[in-house]
């Protein structure tokens, strides 16, 4: 992540473009997480991403790629558990996710030559992202938006009433696997921006703040993007002006916007 020889403006522009990309991805996905009451699922999945980070170092591949692989693996395991045990409870979710987190930390600890700053993975390090990272974010973003456009309506139907959707011929497994795949991509590309501990906040807080202004699902998705982008910009500004860590500053900004949303009259 060579910052040498680059101007101050350069890294700021990258952080801004990358952060905005993540906020755009997180808007609609965050709404879907909130509507499906999957906050804990999202948190667990993102915590497991630390195993992805460790594997990235171990196998010497791009961490975004290894995080994606681990997230998909964990999602598939959870889907299978749900299929054979009726439902994956919070407990099994926690065991799987934190087991993976622990293995990740152990692997990192076993690599004596590696000196990494764990904090930057836990809370993000957006100011150090390079153009390759930005390209990853936008490639992921385009993939997410394309697939999301395809599964949006059937997924909404499933959320409202599963049996009605099934009777209408909607393929539940296919849609749910696709959604978990999108969630995995978003975790992989968000990791560097806000860190694995705060990914889920960037998903759910803008969605929650947008709720009071929205009368339709699409409106809420768009307002979530607006709140997310605003939080990223405010967070970066705060980070520069007051030398606060960037990721937590973005989440803090989003929380403040959420607080202010209560002043608005609920529309629906």
């Amino acid at each position, binding site marked *: 992540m060579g910052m040498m020889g680059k101007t101050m403006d350069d890294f700021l522009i990258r952080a801004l473009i990358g952060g905005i990309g993540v906020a755009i991805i997180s808007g609609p996905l965050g709404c879907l997480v909130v509507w499906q009451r999957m906050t804990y699922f999202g948190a667990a999945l993102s915590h497991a991403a630390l195993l992805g980070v460790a594997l990235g170092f171990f196998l010497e591949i791009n961490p975004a790629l290894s995080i994606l692989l681990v997230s998909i693996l964990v999602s598939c395991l959870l889907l299978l558990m749900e299929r054979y045990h009726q439902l994956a409870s919070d407990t099994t979710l926690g065991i799987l996710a934190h087991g993976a987190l622990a293995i990740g930390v152990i692997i990192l600890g076993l690599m004596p030559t590696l000196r990494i700053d764990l904090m930057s993975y836990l809370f993000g390090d957006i100011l150090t992202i390079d153009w390759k990272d930005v390209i990853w974010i936008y490639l992921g973003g385009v993939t997410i938006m394309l697939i999301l456009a395809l599964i949006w*309506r059937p997924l*909404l*139907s499933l959320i409202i*009433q599963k*049996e*009605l959707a*099934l009777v209408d011929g909607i393929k539940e497994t296919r849609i749910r696997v696709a959604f978990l795949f999108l969630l995995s991509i978003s975790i992989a590309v968000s990791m560097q921006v806000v860190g694995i501990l705060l990914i889920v906040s960037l998903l759910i807080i803008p969605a929650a703040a947008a*709720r009071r202004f929205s009368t*339709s*699902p699409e409106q809420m998705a768009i307002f979530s993007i607006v709140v997310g982008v605003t939080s990223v910009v405010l967070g970066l500004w705060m980070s520069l002006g007051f030398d606060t860590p960037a990721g937590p500053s973005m989440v803090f900004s989003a929380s403040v916007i959420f607080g202010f949303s209560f002043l608005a009259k609920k529309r629906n």
Partner: protein
Amino acid sequence: MGSLSDHHVMDSEHKNAPPLLSLHGISVQRQSGFLIENITLTVQQGEILTVVGPNGAGKSTLVKVSLGLIEPDTGHVETTPNLKIGYVPQNVDIDETFPITVGRFLQLNDKHSHYELLRILEQVNAENLIYSPLQAISGGELRRVLLARALLKKPELLILDEPTAGVDVSGQAEIFTLIQAIRDQQNCGILLISHDLHIVMAGTDKVVCLNRHLCCSGTPEHVQQHPEFIALFGQSHATKFAIYAHHHDHSHDSRGRILHSHEIDNGDDGENHG
């Protein structure tokens, strides 16, 4: 279960037409045992079939098999070709954070004109709800909206899962009236599932009593006197069994005794496993 004739044109004399839906010896088995065992029943065009049974009797399994959502372990399900089924589920469970109006809900999967939506909502007395959030309407209103959604599909068979559960007495009356009107106007077949043993709607042609296996079936009057029905729900429940008639404020039991609606409603809520 008349013999299946080759022509599928529904004539007015529906008894001669093949049934819309027939279940032949359906069993569904899970590790815990049979959910339903050897169920055979048919629904004809223009017929209302009510399935009553206590909780855990396999009613929802029966619905899922009829809808084609569960493959039975034995037996087979037969429908007329390209049968259009309208399904009214028991409930929707949407999070408060999901912003959706009744109007949008009705056309989530298929586009319908605003006029069409209003017309169908009028049919279920819910036209004033078109802009209401789905979470903000009452249980009875929700049931009518779900009914409207099913009607938009112009169904030949309506499957109603506990359409009056959790609805107050006047709301129940309204829903029963509606169901009967829909049957009379559209001449569709109706499969109605109910755990409410005390009230079986007046328009019901046939009652099937389910307790994993098929206890008994026949006209409402026949079923309520059946020994298995009495054994299952107890004598007191069986005698309280009433037939809801929508043009009156009361109904009659088998001996012609008048049952007022509060009497109909004041028994246990039918969850008694005799």
